Structures are given as C-alpha cells and as structure tokens.
C-alpha cells in the first residue's frame, strides 16, 4: 500500500493535477483572509472594468506634488482617438475655412489637429448632411474643449453665505500629481465587477469553493450508492442481483440529465440550496459506478482467496469488506475523482438553465455564468464576468482528469 502511494506520487500526471487542485484549494481557503466583506457585497456598478479604483474626492484632498511632466499630450492621447482626430480633419475640410490642415497626420499630429479644431470650430457653420452627422461634431467639440487648457480646475463647495453661492476650496493645476497611496479610499478589482457590482475575483474564489463542495458532496453520494449497489449485487447474486441490475439499467437508459432537470424543477426554488442540488446530482450520477463495481465484483467473487474466506466461515459483509473492497478500491477512487468533476459540470449546466441552487447568499461557478449570461456580459464586452469562470471550471476538470489518468497509469496493469 505504501509502495503504491509512493508510485502514485511519482506519476507526473497525477502530481500536476494534484498540485493544481491543491493550489485552487489553498486559494479558496487563504484568499478570503485578506479580503474585506462578503463575496456577494454589491460594491460597484454594472460591469466595472478590472483595475485599481481610487476615490476622486480623496485625490483632491491628498497632498499634491507638481511635476514637470508634459500632461497635455498624454491627456490628448487618452481622450482623443484616431477616429476622432480623423473626424476633426473632416470638419476642417468640409467647412472650407482657410486653414492649413493638409499634411497633418491623425496619428502623429494629434495635438496640432485638436488645437486647430478648437481654434476654428464654429457652431454656426452648417455642413451638408444629416442633423445627427452635424451633432456629432458639436459633441466632439464639447468633449475636447477643455483638454488643451493648462489652467486646471477650481474646486468649489456650496456655500449659501457667499454671493455666488459657492466657495473655492482648492485648485487643481494641470501638472499636479498625487500619490495613489495617499488616497485613503481605494479598491482594487482584479477581475472587475459583475452585473450586480460584486467583486468578481472575490466572488470567484468563494464560487470555486462552493462548486468543489457540490462536487465533493455529489461525488461522495454517487460513489457510495454505486459502491454499495455494485458490491451487493455482484457478490450476493441471485434475484437481488437481477433486481439491482434492473434498477441500475433503468437509471442508465433514462438520460440522467433529464431526471436531474425534472428533480430540480420539482423542488421549489426557495428550498433549492447548494446542498440540495448536490444531493440531486449525486442521486442521478451513481449508475455507471454501480455497473463497473458489479462487474469487477463478479470476477473477484470466484477467486480462491474469497473461497478460503468463505471456508473460514466469514459472513457476507466481512468478505465484501476485507476480500473484495480492497481490490476494487483503486478503481473506485478513480471513479470518485471523475464523479466530482462531472458533478461540478452538472451543477454548471443546471445553473445555466436556471435550475441550479437559487441562493442569494452563496455563489457557485454555474450561478456566476448564469448571471453573466442573463445580463448579457458577452454583448457588453465584459469578458471578466465569464471568462475567468469558464477557465476555473476547465482548470478544475482538467486537474481532476489528470489525477484520474495518473491513477489509471499506476493501478491499471495493462498500462503499466
């Protein structure tokens, strides 16, 4: 046994799969210690991009450091796209003003184009075309009109005592800088936020944990039922075997996913918690474990060591536990790993159909996918709401399958 364990941990496939799984588990256990709040706190708004978010008022309050860095072109580069520069050139061309616009390249001379556009733009010049086309230029002008000024902003607060109704509290020069670390209120969203404004990373970590739990519960239930039925029907035989095989075949013939959908559907959505869904999955996934354990038991039952145990007067249960179970155990462990991974996939499938755990207190990988589909994350370009989830599911299944292949190489004599 010790020897088998050692060879198992010398198998590359198994070790890689096992390390991925351990890393994922570590992630789910360790990361929550460093995160504030619950994973389902609605912190942000709909689909915020990944990144570091700092409070704007905090930026004004924070100490300022004037620096000699050319800010205008950076602001221009960030604010005016290539297309917008082309649009400006188009206006200059069509307005037929006497301006030297030829030879300006929208890529390189963006600042010059913006400057020229700002200097010459006139709302009263009526270009040919639709009104929407003309309004586009007005919007462009409004957007860029402040970009080139080096005057900075003046910050006011409402003050009923003063004449104007406002009181100046500060001035932001164009070359003022602030250290982000000086801003007390900030939040880092590694993977942005989802449709409810939840931190996707934090949610993902807890969802991986919950999905693994679904897999573990469902896999354990399926393996236990399969093992019990397989061992009894294989060893005891007779009418009990016929009956159990009949039941197993019935479950195999009816597509288990259909049973899964019907079962989930018949349980009211309020009582469909994570554990209930795991049970439902476990109760439909056992037949193929039962079938293969039964066939292995049938061949083991006629071995001489079983005969010797029978001749020693042992009861059925004792023979099954000491003489048959150890021989099928290595296979059962492999089946168990596959059951876990397929249960995680089954949960994701159910949740995508809206039949998964209906819970507002826990997230699972399937639920996260379901939410992001319902709020059209792919259409909004919010890749961070679903791609990390899909990758996590793939990673878990991948690691489980690697472990399974590794174990197969260790225990299957035909592959050794």
């Amino acid at each position, binding site marked *: *046994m010790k020897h088998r364990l050692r060879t198992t941990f010398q198998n590359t496939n198994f070790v890689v799969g096992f390390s991925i799984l351990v890393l994922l588990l570590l992630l789910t256990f360790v990361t929550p210690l460093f995160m504030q709040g619950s994973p389902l706190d609605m912190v942000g708004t709909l689909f915020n991009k990944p990144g570091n978010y700092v409070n704007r008022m905090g930026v004004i309050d924070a100490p300022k450091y004037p620096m000699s860095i050319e800010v205008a072109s950076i602001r221009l580069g960030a604010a005016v796209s290539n297309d917008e520069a082309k649009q400006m050139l188009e206006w200059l061309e069509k307005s037929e003003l006497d301006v030297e616009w030829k030879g300006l390249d929208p890529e390189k001379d963006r600042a010059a184009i913006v400057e020229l556009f700002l200097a010459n733009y006139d709302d009263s010049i009526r270009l040919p075309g639709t009104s929407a086309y003309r309004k586009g230029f007005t919007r462009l002008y409004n957007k860029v009109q402040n970009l080139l000024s080096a005057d900075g902003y003046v910050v006011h607060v409402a003050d009923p005592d003063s004449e104007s109704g406002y009181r100046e509290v500060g001035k932001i020069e164009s070359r003022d800088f602030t250290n982000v670390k000086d801003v007390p209120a900030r939040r880092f969203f590694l993977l942005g936020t989802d449709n409810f404004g939840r931190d996707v990373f934090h949610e993902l970590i807890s969802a991986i944990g919950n999905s693994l739990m679904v897999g573990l519960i469902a896999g354990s239930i399926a393996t236990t039922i399969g093992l019990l039925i397989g061992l009894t029907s294989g060893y005891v035989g007779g009418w009990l075997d016929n009956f159990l095989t009949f039941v197993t075949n019935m479950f195999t013939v009816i597509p288990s996913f259909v049973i899964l959908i019907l079962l989930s559907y018949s349980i009211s959505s309020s009582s469909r918690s994570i554990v209930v869904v795991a049970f439902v999955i476990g109760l439909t996934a056992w037949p193929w474990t039962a079938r293969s354990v039964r066939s292995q038991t049938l061949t083991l039952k006629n*071995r*001489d*060591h079983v*005969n*010797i*145990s*029978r*001749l*020693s*007067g*042992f*009861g059925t249960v004792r023979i099954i536990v*000491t*003489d048959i179970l*150890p*021989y099928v155990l290595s296979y059962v462990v492999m089946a168990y790993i596959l059951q876990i991974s397929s249960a995680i996939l089954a949960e994701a499938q159910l949740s995508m159909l809206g039949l998964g755990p209906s819970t507002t207190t826990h997230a699972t990988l399937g639920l996260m996918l379901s939410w992001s589909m319902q709020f059209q994350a792919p259409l909004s370009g919010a890749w961070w709401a679903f791609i990390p989830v899909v990758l996590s599911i793939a990673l878990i299944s991948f690691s489980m399958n690697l472990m399974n292949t590794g174990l197969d190489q260790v225990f299957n004599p035909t592959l050794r």
Partner: protein
Amino acid sequence: MAETDRVKVKRRELTETFLEGKNMSKVYGMGRRANRAVDNVNFKFRRGEIVSIVGESGSGKTTLAKMILGLTSITEGQLELYGQPRAFGTTAEKREYWKNIQAIFQDPFSTYNVFSKIDKVLLNCIELRGQKDLPYAQKVEIMTEACSFVNLRFAELTNKYPFELSGGQMQRLMIARIYILKPKLLIADEPTSMVDACSRATILDMLLKLRDEEDMTIVFITHDIGLAYYVSDTIYIMKSGQFVEQGTSDEVILHPKSDYTKRLLSDVPSIYEPWDLTSDDLLSEEDEFPTAAGGAP
C-alpha cells in the same frame, strides 16, 4: 507393469463410511441450454482414505469439489455426512461443516488476499476453531507449531505480505492452515500443479503425514493419473460430469475397464522405457542437420 515395480504409499484398512454423495448433479442454465457440469454422481469416502478424482479440464472435477465444500449449491441429489443429510442452512451450521471439511486450491498466488498480512490467515483459522478469545501468546504458540509442521519459521513470516513469499512457501502455509483446523476431509484441488518439482514432493509428503497423524480423508483432484496412482487408495475417473470408472487404485490402473481410462493411461509418459531409435519420429544418422553456415532451405 506389475504392482511391485513401484514404491507405493502404504495402504490402510478402511471401514467407516464418512461422506457419501447420492445422485449429485450440478446444472447450469435452464431448458435447452442447460449444461450438466456434474451429472448424477455417486461416491463414498471413508475415514483415512486417499481418494483421487482424475479427469481432464472441464470434466467437472472442480465443480464437484465446490459442491462438496458447499461453495456452490447442489442442483440435484444429496450429500450425507455419517448417514445424515448434511446440515447446511444457518451460518452456525455452515461454520460447523467447514470445521470438518476444508480445501487447498491450485494456485497459491490467488489463494491469498494480497491486502492482509499472512498471519491473518492462520489467526482466522484459530477463530474458526472457536478460540477467538485465546490470549495472543497461546495463538502464537499454535501458529508456530503449525508452521514448524510445514518446515516454515513463524517468526520469519509475521508482518509479511503474501507476495513476499514464494509459491512453494505459500502452498505450505495453506497446509499449515489445514494443520490448525484438522478437518476430517481435505479437498486438495491440484495442490501441486503450480509449484516446482522439489516443492511438489514435500507438499505430497506433508499431506500424507496429515493423513497418517490425523486420520484425515484426502480427496486429490488432479489430471495426473500417475500421481493419483502413487498416492491414492481409491480412484474415480471423471469424464464430462460422470464417473466412468471407480475402484481401488490397483484395479483402475492395472486392469482398466473403460476405454477412456485406457486412453488416459496411454498418455502417461514413461521414463523407464528405452527410446525406440528405429521410430520414424527420430532423425536417422544419415540425415543432414541444417547448420547455421549452410542455412536452412
């Protein structure tokens, strides 16, 4: 071939009928596809007798052995122990039956559970004897005695797994198991066919010693008619589920009546006969031997 040519195991006076099979059959399947593995078989085993059941593979020897052992059900007929139909219903009755009737199987490598240590096999026997609550030191004493009977040292065997032993050692340990249980009937299902010639002689000697010391009935199941003649008092020849011939070993071997027995006997190779050099099977001296340099045609 006269009786005096061979050194034979000493014959014994046999009186008491111990186990009797009456019209026993084992049928697999039903209707047209029914297969009669053992077909209407009658036999009588006496105390202290060595019986051989000889037949080729598939003749139903092992099925008959399993029926006697109670490992498979008897379809028709019955088995009588001291004139009474055997009691084989409850677990307690079965345990009582197995105290009297035990077996050694053919392949020592598959007779052991590779997941448990080998002292477990002997401890289980002590448990079957009803001495489960014996202090451990006494159990060790019993096991040591049994092991020394089969020329094994118990101290070397403790905490070992079956795959750490050789085939001969495993088979001898099985005999140690029988020594602890001291059953009245031992069914030895080709006990020597998977071990080397050296171990074979020792194992046979030990079985004969068990018969002499414990007055044990031994049923040899074998395809080797020469071995059967060497050891047994009575021989049953089995063919497709039926006994085609039965009787004392001298009767059966020296004066066979059935054609099948004669054929079996003619298949036994004899090491005493000189080689017939004029036979066509052998190459004559004039024949050219193909050499490596010349190459085969």
